[in-house]
């Protein structure tokens, strides 16, 4: 559907890619409309929908009052009645005011009605920390949503995914949540000319490797890729797996990666306890136990409401150094080779 026809790669930003995806969707299907706080006249609190009101008018780019429960619920109702709403919630923190509608209606209506009432809604929201916004604007709660049967949960981490994940999300007959990490909007890069609709059933291998699998998603992907570069300089070949879809998880791709590398590090900006990282670690242990040569490592956010002060916030979040250290722990000490240095000096272990 969204074939661009552009012959070559095109420079763009994550924000613009998302906007292009919205524009495509609004053009392609009369039933699609965008609804949320400040999506119209303001252009979206992060500028994603800037210009769409002018192009599509206030019926299809609909500003809603501050009333998360009401407008998310209204989106669900409109979906029941045949529309294809895209509802924007400014950030995941505010989605908690609509959690009742998302869980008790969107995720359950199909089942409760014995299959009569599918809810084809897409709900987009920003997630994540890193901008010193403190404890009511910074949390990564997508793992909570990934807990809920009936939902599909997506986390576009690249410009191409920002551009081409929305169409398959809209094509899904069931509710889809899209989590956009706030730190990604300004990233710029090339949109590959051959990019097309994203396969939202599968994780993506962003970098192949042989020694350790670094499994991540969303806003942590750039950090994990940087960690993989760092590890490569130290002679460790890391494979980077981008989950893309947090629910349902793509066990097969994870299994394939771990079968190659025998070691896994999960990087997740959510809190460690009860996290998505915990779920992945559990699955790898259940499904791939005999492929693993080391315990699964997790790099998550510290278990603290996100602090404002820069140093504290940095310390609370997964960082490249911590990812590298976890990967090194998983890979273990370099194998002992005769003549490669003195393993014992003065009777003490050298390291």
């Amino acid at each position, binding site marked *: 559907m969204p074939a661009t026809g552009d012959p070559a790669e095109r420079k763009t930003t994550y924000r613009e890619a998302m906007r292009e995806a919205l524009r495509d969707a609004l053009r392609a299907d009369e039933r699609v409309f965008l609804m949320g*706080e*400040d999506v119209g*006249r*303001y*252009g979206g*609190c992060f500028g994603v929908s800037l210009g769409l009101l002018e192009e599509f008018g206030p019926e299809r780019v609909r*500003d809603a*009052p*501050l*009333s*998360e*429960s*009401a407008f998310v619920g209204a989106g669900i109702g409109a979906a029941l009645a045949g529309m294809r709403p895209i509802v924007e919630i400014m950030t995941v*923190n*505010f989605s908690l*005011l609509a959690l009742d509608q998302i869980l008790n209606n969107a995720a359950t209506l199909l089942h409760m009605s014995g299959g009569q009432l599918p809810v084809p809604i897409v709900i987009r929201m920003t997630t994540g920390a890193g*901008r*010193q*916004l*403190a*404890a*009511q*604007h910074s949390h990564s709660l997508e793992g909570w949503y990934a807990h809920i049967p009936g939902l599909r949960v997506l986390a576009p981490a690249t410009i191409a995914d920002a551009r081409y994940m929305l169409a398959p999300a809209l094509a899904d007959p069931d509710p889809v949540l899209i989590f956009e990490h706030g730190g990604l909007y300004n990233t710029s890069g090339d949109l590959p000319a051959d990019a097309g609709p994203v396969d939202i059933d599968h994780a993506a291998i962003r970098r192949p490797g042989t020694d350790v699998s670094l499994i991540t998603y969303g806003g942590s992907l750039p950090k994990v890729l940087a960690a993989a570069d760092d590890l490569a300089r130290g002679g460790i070949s890391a494979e980077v797996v981008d989950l893309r879809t947090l629910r349902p998880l793509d066990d097969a791709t994870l299994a394939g990666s771990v079968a190659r590398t025998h070691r896994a590090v999960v990087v997740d900006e959510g809190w460690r306890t009860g996290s998505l990282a915990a779920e992945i670690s559990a699955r790898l242990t259940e499904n791939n136990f005999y492929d693993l040569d080391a315990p699964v490592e997790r790099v998550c956010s*510290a*278990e*603290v*409401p996100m*602090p*404002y*002060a*820069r*140093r*504290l916030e940095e*310390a*609370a979040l997964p960082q490249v150094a911590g990812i590298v250290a976890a990967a090194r722990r998983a890979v273990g000490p370099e194998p002992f080779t005769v003549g490669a240095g003195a393993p014992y000096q003065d009777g003490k272990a050298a390291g």
Partner: protein
Amino acid sequence: MSATTPRARKPRARPKKQPAHVPALLASMLRIRRFEERCVELYSAARIRGFMHLYIGEEAVAVGVVEALTDEDAVVSTYREHGHALARGVPADAIMAEMFGKATGCSRGRGGSMHLFDASRRFYGGNAIVGGGLPLAAGLALADRIAGRNRVTCCFFGDGAFAEGEFHETANLAALWGLPLLLVCENNLYAMGTALERAQAQTDLAMRAASYGMVSWAVDGMDVLAVEDAARRAAEGVRAGSGPHFLEMRTYRFRAHSMYDPDRYRDKAEIERWKENDPVERLAGRLRQSGELTDEALAELEQRVADEIDAAVHSAEQAPEEPVEDLLRYVTSPVEEAS
């Protein structure tokens, strides 16, 4: 103007004679104004980060309302709370240090601009979830009711919050239980980029609040004396046991919603019109006319305020950062030593 609705009760006309504390109100408003102007400079210099929302233009509301409260009363605020905090007596240097993310900040660097707290002054904080402070304020008031303490809990919130379920649920609950709550809606006509008439089916907020069975007035929020007068009467009513009172403060923010906001949704002429009603200049003009304020006195006041802010910035700069080792502090309460 003291605009009211037919159904809302109208506060008595302001007394002609201005009380002696009026110059203090001016000083308090000017202090908030200059403090925030400095914050803008510091934000541009990247000394302050995160989201920062300015109160410039709305100073009369915080100053007039807090003037009507006692030290025993409680204040619950929003993310646009520098003015509320300063008026409440949270020291300027503790606020500045907080915005610098320093250990001496009023929230020990954890909160930043949107989360100023001072339990010793019963300032229950900046809340960055729109409407999030309202149920909490009802709970503070409920505790006072149960304990038989005659105190007022004052909750500030915006016109945007008026659209949230949390407002309507709280208003009903507070009116039903007769809670000692003073609800102060700062109607600055915009919720971020959304104008009041594009978010509210009925824009007369005081009238709607009255429908919950509360005493409810609309007030000229650009006139600190009108604000103070209405707040005093409302607080008296609350103290006298007649349940929650609602004040719609008609005001305007002169600056953008936050430091990130390009402010594309308002007519510049509209902003200029409201600036003609600048609460600081309005009161200064009035005091000048009545001979209560001379140029020298104003210059002296400006100097005093500038000195205080300079000192606050200086001490914030010198203050230590919270050590990273303390990252996990205050997540749960410390275990009490057995006594």
